[in-house]
C-alpha cells in the first residue's frame, strides 16, 4: 500500500499528476518541435511545459517541485532561451545578407531547411517555460499546497 507523507493535496491527485506529468512535458516538447508544421510553436509549448511544473507545485507544494526545477535554473533557462533567440536573429545580420531574422538554413535540402525555424522555436520555448515557471513560483511565495502559508524560517 502506498503511503504518502508529503504535504500537499490528496493521494489521488498526486498519483494522477505523477502519471500525467511525463506526457504533459512530452506534449509540450512536441508542440515546440513541430510548431513549424503543425499548430503550436515556442510560446504555446513553453506554456504547456511550465504548466506541468505548476501542476506539480499545486499537488506537492513548492519545496518538492523546487527539487526538480529550482528558481535559478528557471532563470538560467529563460536567459539561455532569450540569448538563443537573439543570437539566431542576429546571426543573419552578422554573417549573411544583413537581414535580421535571415533564414540560415534556407539552402539545405529536405527537412533540414526547417532547422533554423526549429532552433528559434526551441529558444522561445525554453524562454517562455522558464520565465512563466519563475513568475508563478515567485508569485506563489511559500506555498505548501494545502492553502497554508509556510512559517517564516
Amino acid at each position, binding site marked *: 500500500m502506498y503511503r504518502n507523507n508529503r504535504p500537499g493535496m490528496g493521494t489521488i491527485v498526486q498519483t494522477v499528476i505523477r502519471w500525467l506529468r511525463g506526457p504533459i512535458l512530452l506534449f509540450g516538447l512536441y508542440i515546440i518541435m513541430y510548431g513549424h508544421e503543425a499548430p503550436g510553436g515556442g510560446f504555446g509549448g513553453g506554456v504547456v511545459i511550465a504548466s506541468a511544473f*505548476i501542476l506539480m507545485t499545486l499537488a506537492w507544494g513548492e519545496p518538492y517541485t523546487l527539487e526538480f526545477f529550482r*528558481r535559478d535554473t528557471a532563470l538560467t533557462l529563460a536567459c539561455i532561451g532569450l540569448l538563443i533567440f537573439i543570437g539566431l536573429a542576429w546571426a543573419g545580420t552578422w554573417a549573411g545578407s544583413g537581414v535580421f531574422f535571415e533564414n540560415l538554413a534556407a539552402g539545405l535540402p529536405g527537412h533540414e531547411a526547417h532547422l533554423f*525555424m526549429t532552433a528559434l522555436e526551441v529558444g522561445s520555448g525554453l524562454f517562455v517555460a522558464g520565465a512563466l515557471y*519563475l513568475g508563478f513560483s*515567485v508569485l506563489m511565495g511559500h506555498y505548501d499546497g494545502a492553502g497554508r502559508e509556510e512559517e517564516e524560517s
Partner: protein
Amino acid sequence: MTEILALLILLSVVGAIVAVVTPNLVYSVISVGAVGFLLAIAFLLLSAPDIAVVQIGVESISLVLLLRATLGRETQQGATRPLVGVAFAVAVVAVIGLFGLQVFYEFPEFGLPAMARFADAPAATYLATGAEATGAPNIVTAVLLDFRGWDTLGEGTVLFCAVLGATAIMRRRARRKDDVSK
C-alpha cells in the same frame, strides 16, 4: 457554424458581465476563466488552432494564479459605487463603442482577410513566399518567428522584464551568498 460562433461569443459576453457584476471575487475569477476558454473554442472554430493552444495554456495558468491570489482572502468586494462614477464609466464605454462600431463598416465580408483589399499587401507576400523563405510550412509560425520576429522579440523582452520585476519585488529576504535556491 456562424450560429455556434455567435452562441460562443454571446456566452463569453454573459461571462464577462457576470465577472463584473458579482460581488464575490472567486466567482468573478471563475467567470473570467470561462470567458477565456470560450474564446479558445471560438478561435478553434475560426481555424486558428495556434492561438487556441496558447489561449488555453495561458488561461489555465492565469486562472490558477488568480484563484491562488483570491482564495482564503477577503473576497467580498465593496458593493456600492458612487453614481457619478458609474455614469462616467458608461459614457466612456458608449463613446468608445460608437467609434468601434464604425470599424465594422470598413471590414470586408466575413471570412475574407482584411488585407485582401490591397493588391500589394504584406499578407499576400507572406502567403506566397512564406514556406520557402522561412522554411516553415505553418504560415503562422513563419509570420510570428520570421517576418514579424521583432514583435516576438519584444514580447519576450516584456515577459522577461515582468518576471524580473516580480522576482525583485516579491522576495521576502535579501539574497545571501549561501542561499542560492530561493
